[in-house]
């Protein structure tokens, strides 16, 4: 493989990692605050649909993004009401949200556009365009660094850079602010937070809403950045891969970036090569597709480091009287 091919694959890996990254950070914040969320997939899907629809109505991708975030936050609030207010089972609520998204996007899409569950093709300002970073053209001719800067680092839609920044922001909020400390505490030991006179319910709702916003960006990127419009079931299991990446990253923002890039790279390799030969053994593409899931099971099994979830995760908090 020459430098150009490698760069193209890495470039595509970065693009494909971005929706995973947003969803993964969304899950990270929610689960750090003690709310398990297997509804990432559903929130991504509903946001992808709403972002593409609103963008096609308004002609502006930014308004579309807001629409996507709104839809995703709405589902997040359902999850919050079910799992925080009514102390329901968070896993069951997540399952319901995934089904709801899969059904409602097609029904409403069919009603709005009559295109068999698709939205119209998005063009121009209704899509996130690739932006060229400063000096990219000028530096193009510089050997090695030039192509890396031009091909790999420059020329993505703005959300890719926002995603990279969000990793830092998540780390900073969780580990360097009082709000983040409380949020982590509420996922490990809600009694202590309650004793300190801080509302567990408010903190957990805040986490669930942030999770909704991030899933919203993830879904909007899918339908308005990565492709030009919504198609039925377009999240295609990415929410679950993000969940896998979250465990792979052991609930840490920096590792989450690594895990998402790895899973993005796997997808990029699978897209580019139909068959991969390693040491003259044919690796079927299906194996590449299954690899994120297999790796997650291996990590969960604790054979390669141990993944320990937040201690109070998945349990509704009942205030003592």
């Amino acid at each position, binding site marked *: 493989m020459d430098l150009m091919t490698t760069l193209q694959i890495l470039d595509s890996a970065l693009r494909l990692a971005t929706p995973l990254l947003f969803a993964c950070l969304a899950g990270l914040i929610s689960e750090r605050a003690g709310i398990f969320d297997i509804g990432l997939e559903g929130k991504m899907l509903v946001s992808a649909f709403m972002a593409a629809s609103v963008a096609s109505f308004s002609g502006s991708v930014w308004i579309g993004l807001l629409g996507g975030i709104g839809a995703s936050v709405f589902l997040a609030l359902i999850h919050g009401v079910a799992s925080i207010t009514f102390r*329901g089972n968070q*896993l069951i609520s997540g399952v319901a949200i995934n089904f709801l998204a899969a059904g409602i996007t097609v029904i409403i899409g069919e009603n709005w556009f009559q295109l068999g569950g698709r939205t119209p093709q998005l063009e121009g300002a209704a899509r996130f365009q690739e932006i060229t970073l400063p000096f990219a053209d000028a530096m193009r001719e510089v050997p090695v660094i030039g192509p890396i800067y031009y091909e790999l680092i420059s020329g993505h839609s703005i959300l890719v850079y926002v995603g990279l920044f969000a990793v830092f922001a998540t780390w900073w909020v969780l580990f360097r602010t009082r709000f983040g400390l409380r949020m982590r505490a509420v996922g490990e030991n809600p009694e202590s937070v309650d004793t300190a006179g801080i509302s567990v319910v408010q903190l957990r709702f805040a986490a669930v809403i942030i999770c909704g916003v991030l899933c919203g960006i993830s879904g909007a990127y899918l339908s308005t950045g990565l492709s030009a419009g919504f198609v039925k079931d377009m999240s295609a299991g990415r929410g679950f891969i993000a969940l896998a990446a979250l465990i792979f990253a052991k609930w840490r923002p920096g590792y989450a970036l690594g895990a998402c890039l790895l899973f993005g790279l796997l997808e990029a390799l699978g897209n580019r090569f139909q068959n991969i030969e390693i040491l003259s053994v044919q690796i079927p593409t299906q194996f590449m597709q299954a690899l994120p899931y297999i790796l997650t099971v291996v990590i*969960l099994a604790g054979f390669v480091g141990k993944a320990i979830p937040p201690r109070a995760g998945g349990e509704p908090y009942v205030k003592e009287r």
Partner: protein
Amino acid sequence: MDKMPKWVDIALIPIINLMLALFVSGLVVLYIGENPIEALKIMVNGAVGSTYGWGYTLYYATNFIFTGLAVAVAFQARLFNIGGEGQAAIGGLGVAVVCLYIDWPHWLIALPFAIIGGAVFGAAWAAIPAYLQARRGSHIVITTIMFNYIAATLLVYLLVNVMKKKGSMSPETARFPEGSFLPSAYDMAGWVGLSFSRSAPLNISFFIALICCLLVYILIWRTRLGYQIRAFGQSEPAALYAGISPFKITMITMLISGGLAGMMGINAVMGEAERLVLDPVQGAGFVGIAVALMGRSHPLGVLLAGILFGMLYQGGGELEFEIPAVSREMILVIQALVILFTGALDNMIRMPIERLFARSRQRTA
């Protein structure tokens, strides 16, 4: 704990939840400009208005009873087996292996082996997540989700590269030999001199599903093992103190659960398709979650909820046919709302009703 009469818990609350789910679904139908009452009529009529309708309703119900029992058994031990989809797919593979490569003289001989094939493959697929939960503490929900995806890709690989019919383009196996064809509802109705729709896929597996309901009931409430499973589910420390091995119970429960999900293959793969296709489960593994929730993890409840969801699936198909504006995905929405209201938002209805009963009891006392 016993604040309410039993009928409130097992009948009234599920019915209110179901009504709420239907009401919100009705709002969705209303939003897209159709009449919800009309839609409901079409659904009910399409599901149970003819032997054809019943034939599909009960065919779907058979799938859902198997997967619902699978989830219900695991729920009894407080294990959330979300992997019914994958276990049923691999179970279907087991059924296909038994039916495809052996030329059976008669279906009566083929059926027991197909049941064993489906159950063993399904149980094997549940065994790894079960072991990891019991020995390494890996969260069973996450591992079973991952195994669903691994099962799907494994099936694609096998159907594209290994088991595909020679010379065929589509990723499916050849049709099974005739000795493994199960009698359909049409055949069975003929034995007793009745008539039944010829084209409906309902087959003898429905009765296997009924037998499974009975066996699960006996297992959970009438055997020592069932007692241990329930005790483990109620309180792991108490079970441990009573000398019940958490490892053993987790493994056995999940093997039974996976086996039940795998047995869905005899209905969908052996009974209906008569070959192995790319997605033999069609989401029935997830419907099993809704069925187990509605049925309160009791075999009788699972049976009734399974039939209800069978009606929903068949009626929903008819609905799309009659009112094209309401697409088939309406089924997913109703299903999601049923899971949401009966599962996650259960306390929303339960808490006020509990309070109501507590108050009326105070007054009478």
